[in-house]
């Protein structure tokens, strides 16, 4: 409950985690129909609850909050009050969910069938479920699952149904509404739909936020939304979006409920259904529009083996204890609570910190499969020609080494110790047969194409990149474990001396550079540095004293691994910098940035000047641009004819690029920025 739980403890090895139980085991033993029709009587919130979706709508439409905004909009726009009110109810109609138990039962039935067909097991920490059962009765609950697949919210509702927990109201993107039948079915199983962007639309915002708050205040149902905003295509956690979290905390901050419990849920897939789809998307094949027919095409997935899923319900985090000493709640008592107000500076930073902590909590409880380690190793040792890939026995030996390192870093690794390592490795490899090949006792990524295709060099590169990016998405799952030590390793690498101060400023530079790329809690630089130092000292890779950071004799392997795990990102960011310096034209806009930088990178890859096809990931490119915008190396022109174009500060970009490449000390670079 306490806020401390969210913080990583001093020694991550000591982290205690619950055991898992397989939900499908029971499903395989008894009939799905009976399961779907069984008596469902969830535990309910102790406060007064409204159970009807229609009552909920009435409450929203009659709320003071909405009345205020309706009046305001009517006054400002000159549209008659009744029309605005009518518009509000249209918005609400479009948004609101219509939970029906029959639909839920239908899903319970079909999902059981599907899950049993494609997954080996769905493992859930039942202690987490019990905690949730407790907390659902006490306070309004917000479920915050990680988002890696469309499957996530179906799976969540499925589990809630299975464990007799109240079905959540799920905030879903409007794009689902495009899927006619399925959209409505999702609506009837508890999803409500929000437009992806409604920036200036006051009325929409008012209806939306009031709808969400009414759900919470009345204990109607747990609220569920994705902190990351969208599915992560890279399997890295995304920078949290604050909008919904802000709304979800509001009833507590304004004293309308005693507390709100936030429950981070980590869903980890052994094999993500959308793995190559994501890779293609990152490479510039646009995302297919969600459509029902598209879903049916996905039928072939039914014949595949997607391994197991682990769902970890983290300890509930009380908003009250998070806010203790951080937010002065009495500030909300000075204006009527129904008048919408921008969150004050302290509230904003509080919500932001909380969001990061929650995403970190999600990350920490993600279960890592052995394949994740193999993917990391394979990406680092691709070799070429006769020497492509890694000999199998060497890979096994490396994997065991990495497994132990991982565990010392406190990773939540699911490596079956009772099975010989060679079997663990080979079964992982066979599950991911689409990405990896084993021949002549060598293991390598499945990069080459069938010979009959005649492809251009560029097409071949892109198809290889699909495999690399798919693999990278598995490696990315483990990044959060290695991130801080890897930043330190890279900092040692780039720092001009072993002076602790110097290393720290390198670390700070890299951390700052990559804070759009990875989840790095704002304001926790010192803490992160200390954690990295602690971990690397613990594994014997570094000696750290008052003034110096020294590499230990046996630390080279660890440091080399850590540096190279970060290397694609370092190279990628340098690429983006050099693109902006060399190739950016006057009329470069944000929209045209990705295709342009992609072409630039393809050129470099083909010339052999760049080793990592994963730099082609548009996610990396966008993150790099966001970082450069944040640092002021690139500026977006506001207004005028050139509005929206990017203005480049070449001097700064050059120095950033050199610093990333270790050619310029961070001290100088920092000075240059100032």
């Amino acid at each position, binding site marked *: 409950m306490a806020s401390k739980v969210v913080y990583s403890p001093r020694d991550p090895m000591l982290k205690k985690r619950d055991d898992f139980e397989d939900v499908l085991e029971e499903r395989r033993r008894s009939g799905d129909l009976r399961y779907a029709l069984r008596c469902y009587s969830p535990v309910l919130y102790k406060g007064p609850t409204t159970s009807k979706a229609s009552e909920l709508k009435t409450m929203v439409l009659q709320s003071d909050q909405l009345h205020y905004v309706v009046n305001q909009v009517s006054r400002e726009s000159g549209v008659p009050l009744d029309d605005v009110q009518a518009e509000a109810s249209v918005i609400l109609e479009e948004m609101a969910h219509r939970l029906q138990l029959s639909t839920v039962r239908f899903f319970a039935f079909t999902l059981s069938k599907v899950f049993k067909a494609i997954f080996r097991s769905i493992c859930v920490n039942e202690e987490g479920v019990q905690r949730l059962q407790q907390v659902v009765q006490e306070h309004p609950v917000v479920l915050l699952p990680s988002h890696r697949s469309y499957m996530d919210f179906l799976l969540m509702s499925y589990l809630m149904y299975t464990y007799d927990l109240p079905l959540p109201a799920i905030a879903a993107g409007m794009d689902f509404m495009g899927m006619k039948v399925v959209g409505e079915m999702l609506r009837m199983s508890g999803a409500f739909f929000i437009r992806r962007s409604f920036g200036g639309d006051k009325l929409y915002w008012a209806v939306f936020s009031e709808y969400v708050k009414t759900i919470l205040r009345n204990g109607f149902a747990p609220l569920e939304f994705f902190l990351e905003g969208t599915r992560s295509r890279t399997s890295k956690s995304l920078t949290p979006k604050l909008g919904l979290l802000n709304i979800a905390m509001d009833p507590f901050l304004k*004293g309308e409920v*005693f507390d709100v419990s936030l429950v981070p849920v980590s869903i980890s897939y052994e094999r993500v259904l959308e793995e190559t789809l994501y890779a293609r998307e990152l490479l510039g094949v646009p995302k297919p529009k969600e459509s029902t027919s598209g879903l049916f095409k996905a039928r072939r997935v039914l014949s595949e083996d997607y391994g197991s899923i682990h769902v970890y319900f983290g300890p509930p985090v009380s908003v009250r204890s998070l806010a203790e000493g951080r937010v*002065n*709640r*009495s500030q909300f008592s000075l204006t009527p609570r129904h008048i919408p107000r921008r969150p004050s500076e302290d509230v904003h930073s509080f919500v932001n910190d909380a969001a990061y902590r929650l995403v970190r909590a999600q990350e920490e409880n993600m279960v890592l499969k052995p394949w994740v380690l193999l993917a990391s190793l394979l990406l680092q040792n691709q070799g070429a020609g006769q020497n492509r890939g890694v000999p199998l026995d060497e890979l096994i030996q490396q994997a065991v080494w990495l497994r132990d390192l991982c565990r010392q870093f406190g990773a939540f690794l699911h490596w079956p110790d009772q099975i010989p390592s060679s079997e663990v490795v080979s079964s992982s490899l066979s599950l991911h047969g689409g990405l990896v090949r084993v021949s002549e006792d060598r293991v390598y990524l499945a990069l080459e194409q069938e010979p009959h295709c005649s492809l251009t060099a560029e097409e071949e590169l892109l198809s290889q990149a699909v495999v690399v990016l798919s693999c990278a998405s598995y490696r990315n799952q483990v990044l959060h474990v290695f991130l801080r030590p890897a930043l330190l390793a890279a900092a040692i690498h780039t720092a001009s001396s072993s002076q602790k101060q110097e290393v720290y400023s390198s670390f700070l530079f890299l951390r700052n550079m990559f804070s759009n790329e990875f989840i790095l809690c704002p304001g926790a630089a010192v803490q992160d540095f200390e954690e990295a130092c602690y971990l690397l000292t613990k594994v014997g890779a570094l000696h750290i004293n008052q003034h110096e950071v020294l590499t230990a004799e046996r630390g080279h392997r660890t440091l080399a691994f850590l540096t190279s795990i970060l290397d694609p990102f370092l190279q990628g960011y340098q690429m983006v910098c050099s693109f902006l310096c060399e190739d950016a034209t006057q009329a470069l806009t944000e929209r045209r940035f990705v295709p342009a930088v992609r072409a630039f990178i393809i050129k470099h890859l083909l010339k052999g000047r760049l080793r990592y096809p994963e730099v082609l990931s548009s996610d990396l490119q966008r993150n790099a641009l966001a970082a450069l915008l944040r640092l002021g190396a690139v500026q977006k022109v506001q207004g005028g004819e050139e509005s929206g174009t990017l203005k480049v500060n070449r001097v700064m970009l050059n120095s950033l690029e050199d610093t990333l490449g270790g050619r310029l000390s961070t001290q100088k670079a920092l000075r240059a920025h100032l």
Partner: protein
Amino acid sequence: MASNSCGGGSDRQMAAQHRLSVIAGHLQRPSGSNTAVLAAECKGQGSKPFVSSENRTVPRRRQEIMKWNGWGYSDSKFVYNKKGQAEFTGKRYKLSGMIIPGLKDWMENTFGATLQHKAAATPALNSSAVPPPTLNEAFVEELKSTGVPFSADAEDRVFRAHGHCLHEIFALREGKIGRVPDMVVWPNCHSDVVKIVELACKHNVCLIPYGGGTSVSSALECPPEETRSIISLDTSQMNRILWIDEKNLTAHIEAGIIGQDLENLLNESGYCTGHEPDSMEFSSLGGWVATRASGMKKNIYGNIEDLVIRIKMVTPQGVIEKSCQGPRMSTGPDIHHFIMGSEGTLGVITEVTMKIRPVPEYQKYGSVVFPNFEQGVACLREVARQHLRCHYHHFFLSPDNFNLMFSTGHALKPQVSSIFTSFLDGLKKFYITKFKGFDPNRLCVATLLFEGNREKVLQHEKQVYDIAAKFGGLAAGEDNGQRGYMLTFVIAYLRDLGMDYFVIGESFETSVPWDRVLDICRNVKARIIHECKDKGVQFPPLSTCRVTQTYDAGACVYFYFAFNYRGLSDPVHVYEQVEHAAREEILANGGSLSHHHGVGKLRKEWMREAVSSVGMGMLQSVKDYVDPNNIFGSRNLL
């Protein structure tokens, strides 16, 4: 006591002699006490007091009639008799001498407090435990020459070293005595006070004014860091009504008079003030002014700030008072507002001119049952909106399974004499819970008292009941209302019974805008339960609340909090932590630091937050000007 007005007529001298003999009765004390028994004449009063002042409730030696370690009169308390039934002793109250059948079960069910587990209090004050007085010899010498009575007797001093906060009473029951005043003085009139304050300034001693001793803000506690001699200035003998002005409907009263005496004396002339705080049996007019008190009939008569016309206060800089009795003035910030709420930090309030009203011709009690607290509050809000306040008042409500008002009310319901009434009661309960479908665990009761002329009372009664009906309220009879009214005075005695059986608790109040009433009630109650669990309290606490006052823009909310402390090593500390957390919660939810209890030393830490740094600076600069040497060194408020 004596009116002793000057003028020197022999009949007055005679009267003074007579009163002296009365006083002498009060002054019998153990030999060896260094008290000067003197009834000095008070000079300077221009006229004869309007009402004589024999037979006042509070004697100089409070210990003659009051408990030394609990609430109220020594003869009145809840006890379990030999049959194990709860009984209220004494003869003073309507409830006195009655058996209260439900109380024992209620104590058991609510707190798990059983007869087997008794926490006995120290039976009598052990004078040797009282630290010897630090006397300022020069001051005492000069004081003697003025003829103002004083005492350094241990009992006298201990009686004036505390109010009625839980920790204060708990310590007394344990026989623990901390810093107490070194001396008690009993001025008889304004000019006595002037002399005392002059001497205090001259000899640099610390003065702490003492009125009725009902403070619940640690305001009477002697600051332990005070090294000077501390003199408790007991105003209880300044208790006369000096005049009544029927043309303007005002009365000029000495500030030491206690509430019930004031009301009784005015009633003799056919008037009342209408100021009836729950503590009115013991609290004093000066205390009301010094803490910004509020009474339960304030909806008709107003709070103390609405009732005072003129105040006279003696400060180290001299006497502060206004030059006329105009009903309102535009003369800069109202200097009365430096005095009201000054909590004894600036001076001693000696005389007050206040409004009076003719005693109402007709009174009628009433009560309404609501299906839940939310509906009850909505009804109160509507009644306030319609400005029906003029002729109803004392509206209070409590949620949680009849708790307190109904449950306690029920528990406190004296044995009924006739079978018929109990049958009727059962029938009513049946009607409410079964027929009307009220959930007995959620319903709440509002008690009402209407007063004024008969016609208007009946008319307003109907209006209020009509509104109540709109919010699902059912009229629940006059006797429930009357019972609620009666309860206000005995409820304080209940805590002493609790403490005999390991239950400690207290009430605290706040004021809050209407739209936050429900939220603050829910959150503060939940916070209390949460904190108790957190602090290891073994039994579920009682955590409930009621709305006691309504205003145009908000309401006053009382919280009741008590728990069984068996199994805790430092119950008072736990209690204080929980109360502290509850106050934080109140402030976070938009409640005020205090509605009428005041700040004292208990709530000082939040003052800056409550009034801003500039506000604190303003108050501090007033203090610095009026009392640069901190003669009034109670260290309250700032």
